């Protein structure tokens, strides 16, 4: 059987792309994506493949009494039906603790939990087969209020209990009180990553079932492989993964969704199997941003200096653990925001409920913390009679300050500069309600709901600190191989390109280090060591560091080769443009010539410095590095209808160094779109554990017409800890943009808003 599975993006050299670090060369996948020829994993196919589909629980909590497959088996064209009984290896999986069943066995714990899967000759056959499977449930009362998980008043809905993690932070003198005290309760709704390329995979079994090859859109090939192999009862090496074209991720592809099901069906049938989720299924099939309730009390001096923070976090992790415990740690350790604070008492809970499972999403717990601490900073400003900028400047953190975990911030920490540079960006010259009556500039837009006289303007601030990379003792690394021959560099890594542009950066690094123009990117798969996850703003730092390291080792070989040919100490050699030059003489040899007919090859693993676990008082150097950002939002609000138009967002972001300024801008604008979405419209609504809006008709995302103008100031203070001086830039844009927008709405209407997204009714009533 021949297969026609496409290889991953960017595996061919594009001679027109030549940029080096600091340039903004075109993306190798850019033209294909714009023209619609890019192969996303939803486009995968192989000769003779079968379609797979998943049967899901209709109940938030129920006991599975029986599953009757007999009617489904009678349907012509059905090739396989599998349930929990057919999982040959570990019955459960999970990133941190393996508590999530491949298929529900005894209990279903959320609406949408997989119960069975089928493979058949046509999607309609799959649908009919799923309809023909008879599952008898004993419906149980669901646990939907996370407070009941905290207080222990609901019997455990899982053998591991209803609390994923409780973490306390106690720092300094907890008896201190402030002359000024402000407190508030904040609520953050459940946001969806809403990537456009739906979950899709193609599994191709090895002859005899000795192994399986999986093409899949994912964030972390090796972690997927490890979890898949365990569930299949295979060795890691028997499972080979290749990255399918990824249409966005934002955290939702960090967990297993359809991977194990697809492989199992392929192994069972001995034929390639393809599963592709619909949008509705995607909402049920991946983890989301944790909804959270946060209480904070800030104590300060009369002149606004924070002296103590008390806080309580409750984060609803839904039915299974995913990364809830790590999300919680990120949230509680960022309680203070980018501000100095010596004393703190924080209690945080991540709990299990029968709601949709939650896990990683861009910002990873810090989005929730930031919404609360920025609300508090505005309250503090009001209580002290200071303006929002002044209160933040007075408390701004600097390098050498400590977090409430005791960890010293060793990174560049230009918090005050972020705030001041944001403040220096011009406010919109557009009058309230827009220029010359263009209705699309008014809240309500095309709906023609308002006239200029109805509109009020507000300005709000948000400032954030975000940890970069993984935390709590995880030995995080990335691997890259570089081969130089005939003036062409080939790079191999398993770094998931999810749209963030790593494939562009990788080429820029190789060109800069080796003085070449042509860079070949080899397929992104598991035939090399792990690159870690494309998450936590980490790939430019980690995989960038690995590519840089591999290229530097190759350059040493090249210099040694040239040195020995010309009798020159290799230490005197350097790359200048496309040439190797002698820094102390006249020698100048083009790299292409120096590497003609010779192959230099090196593989490099980049590890970041070690981190520690937190102790029971939440003390410890648990994070790797930090980045900072400020946002100022300008909004126009129609107070009578509660409609909002975000007019402008100004931002200054601490990025270390812009390796590709256009990519940085893309991350900033995209992150702001996601932050605006969480501020004014994006929320998964569940009642009694049932999702009410698992579609893009009712789960609203900002469109181009909802995007504000974005003004950007890049703060480039290269970080000595970062391999290329560059900090991760992916997450900060979506963290403090949300509180900035909400603060601007508060400013416009003079009303306290403590919940995001802000709904029209929150403004009106």
């Amino acid at each position, binding site marked *: 059987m021949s297969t026609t599975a496409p290889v991953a993006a960017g595996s061919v050299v594009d001679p027109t792309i030549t940029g080096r670090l600091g340039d903004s060369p075109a993306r190798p996948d850019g033209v294909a994506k714009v023209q619609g020829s890019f192969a996303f994993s939803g486009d995968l196919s192989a000769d003779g493949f079968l379609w797979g589909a998943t049967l899901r629980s209709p109940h938030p909590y129920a006991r599975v009494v029986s599953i009757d497959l007999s009617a489904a088996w009678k349907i012509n064209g059905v090739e396989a039906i599998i349930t929990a009984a057919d999982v040959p290896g570990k019955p459960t999986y999970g990133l941190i603790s393996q508590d999530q069943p491949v298929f529900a066995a005894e209990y279903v714990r959320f609406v949408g939990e997989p119960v069975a899967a089928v493979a058949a000759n046509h999607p309609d056959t799959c*649908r009919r087969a799923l309809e023909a499977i008879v599952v008898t449930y004993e419906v149980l009362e669901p646990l939907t209020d996370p407070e009941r998980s905290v207080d222990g008043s609901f019997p455990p809905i899982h053998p591991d209990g209803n609390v994923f993690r409780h973490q306390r932070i106690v720092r300094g003198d907890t008896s201190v009180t402030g002359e000024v005290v402000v407190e508030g309760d904040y609520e953050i709704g459940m946001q969806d990553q809403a990537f456009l390329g739906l979950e899709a995979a193609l599994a191709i079994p090895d002859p005899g079932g000795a192994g399986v090859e999986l093409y899949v859109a994912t964030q972390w090939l090796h972690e997927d492989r490890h979890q898949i192999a365990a569930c299949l009862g295979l060795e890691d090496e028997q499972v080979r993964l290749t990255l399918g074209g990824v249409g966005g991720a934002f955290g939702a592809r960090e967990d297993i969704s359809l991977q194990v099901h697809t492989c199992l069906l392929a192994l069972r049938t001995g034929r390639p199997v393809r599963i592709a989720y619909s949008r*509705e299924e995607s909402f049920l099939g991946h983890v989301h941003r944790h909804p959270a309730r946060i209480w904070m009390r800030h104590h300060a001096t009369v002149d606004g200096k924070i002296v103590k923070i008390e806080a309580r976090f409750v984060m609803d992790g839904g039915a299974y653990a995913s990364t809830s415990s790590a999300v919680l740690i990120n949230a509680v350790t960022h309680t203070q925001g980018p501000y100095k604070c010596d004393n703190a008492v924080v209690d945080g809970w991540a709990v299990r409920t029968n709601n949709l499972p939650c896990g990683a999403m861009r910002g990873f717990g810090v989005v929730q913390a930031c919404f609360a601490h920025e609300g508090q900073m505005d309250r503090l400003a009001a209580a002290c009679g200071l303006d929002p900028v002044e209160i933040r400047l007075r408390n701004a953190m600097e390098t050498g300050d400590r977090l409430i975990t005791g960890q010293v911030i060793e990174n560049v920490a230009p918090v005050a500069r972020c705030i001041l540079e944001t403040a220096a960006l011009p406010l919109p010259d557009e009058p309230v309600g827009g220029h010359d009556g263009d209705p*699309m500039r008014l*809240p*309500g*837009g*095309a*709906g*023609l*709901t*308002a*006239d200029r006289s*109805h509109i009020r303007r507000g300005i709000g601030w948000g400032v954030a600190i975000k940890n970069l990379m993984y935390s709590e003792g995880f030995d995080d690394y990335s691997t890259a191989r570089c081969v130089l021959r005939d003036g062409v560099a080939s790079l191999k890594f398993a770094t998931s390109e999810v749209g963030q542009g790593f494939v562009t950066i990788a080429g820029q690094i190789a060109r800069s280090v080796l003085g070449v123009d042509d860079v070949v990117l080899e397929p992104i798969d598991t035939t090399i060591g792990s690159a870690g996850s494309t998450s936590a703003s980490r790939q430019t730092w980690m995989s960038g560091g690995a590519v840089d390291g591999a290229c530097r080792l190759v350059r040493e070989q090249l210099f040694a080769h040239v040195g020995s040919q010309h009798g020159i100490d290799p230490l005197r050699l350097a790359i200048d443009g496309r040439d190797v030059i002698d820094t102390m003489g006249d020698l100048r040899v083009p790299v292409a010539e120096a590497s003609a007919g010779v192959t230099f090859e090196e593989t490099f693993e980049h590890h970041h410095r070690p981190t520690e676990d937190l102790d029971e008082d939440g003390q410890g150097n648990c994070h790797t590095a930090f980045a900072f950002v400020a946002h100022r939002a300008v909004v126009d609000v129609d107070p*009578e*209808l*509660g*409609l909002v*138009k975000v007019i402008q967002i100004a931002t200054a972001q601490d990025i270390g160094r812009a390796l590709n300024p256009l990519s940085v801008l893309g991350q900033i604008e995209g992150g702001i779109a996601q932050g605006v979405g969480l501020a*004014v*419209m994006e929320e998964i*609504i569940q*009642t009694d554990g049932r999702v*009410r*809006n698992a*579609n893009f*008709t*009712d789960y*609203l995302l*900002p*469109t181009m*017409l*909802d995007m504000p103008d974005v003004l950007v100031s890049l703060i480039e203070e290269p970080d000595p800890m970062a391999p290329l001086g560059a900090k991760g830039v992916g997450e900060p844009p979506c963290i403090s943009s949300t509180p900035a927008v909400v603060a601007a709405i508060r400013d416009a209407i003079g009303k306290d808003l403590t919940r995001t997204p802000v*709904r*029209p*009714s929150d403004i*009106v*009533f």
Partner: protein
Amino acid sequence: MSVTVAHTLDDALASLAATPTATVLAGGTDLMVELNGGHRRTDAVVSVNRVRELRSWRHDPAAATLHIGAAVTYAELAAEPLASFAPALAQAARTVGSPQIRNAATIGGNVGTASPAGDGLPVLSALDAVVHLASLAGRRDVAFAEFATGPKRTVLQPGELITGITIPVLSGYQGYAKVGVRNAMVIATASACLAVDVPGRSVRLALGSVGPVILRAPEAEALAVAAADFEAGAIDADAVEAFGAAAGRAARPIDDHRSSAAYRRRAIEVLARRLLVRAFPGTPGGE
């Protein structure tokens, strides 16, 4: 699945008569969503958006009416020359979906779907449109108010086609306003159409997304007629307030995942007031 692409009205009616269970397909912007989502199934489709009779429109100056074929698209309604004949319909058309949707979606499909959130429908209600139906058995006209019997339920019989609608070309302000949580490409959480007939001394107000079908607000309408100075185009502030309150009373909104009944009612009050002020911008007793 059998698909018949009709090019004439007779073709379409014959196909429908031959397969009375067939589903009519116009722009497909509602139907395809339902089919793809598995909410509806069909074995036979009769496509009507190439039927010349349904693609055309006709202005009758003598009767002061506009006949719009069922397969006329929102993009056409939003542009001249149609926009001047039916300004509120043009405004409603501009709020529908995105440019791609407006290029495909038809007024007949909007009427056929009969969603209380259909943006064209409050306009047809306010203008007392007549819906023209045809089948091989014959033709009939139904008042718009009689056409929808509930959410997505209509008097349309199997084998019957909507051929078009007729609306009066009125002299006076008309406008449509729609509240949604996004600034475009959004389902209405509440909407309203106000149409004034100056010579006829009438004010019509129709409400969308706040009941099982499009609702009229007769109490509010009467109030406005009594209070308005049609010549000066003016109305006093108290009457505007009362008009909004009466409009709110006419609404029969529900709580659902899109919004609350309370918010919808409030939105109707606000929209009604703002539309009335747009219709009568002058100050009463002023110059």
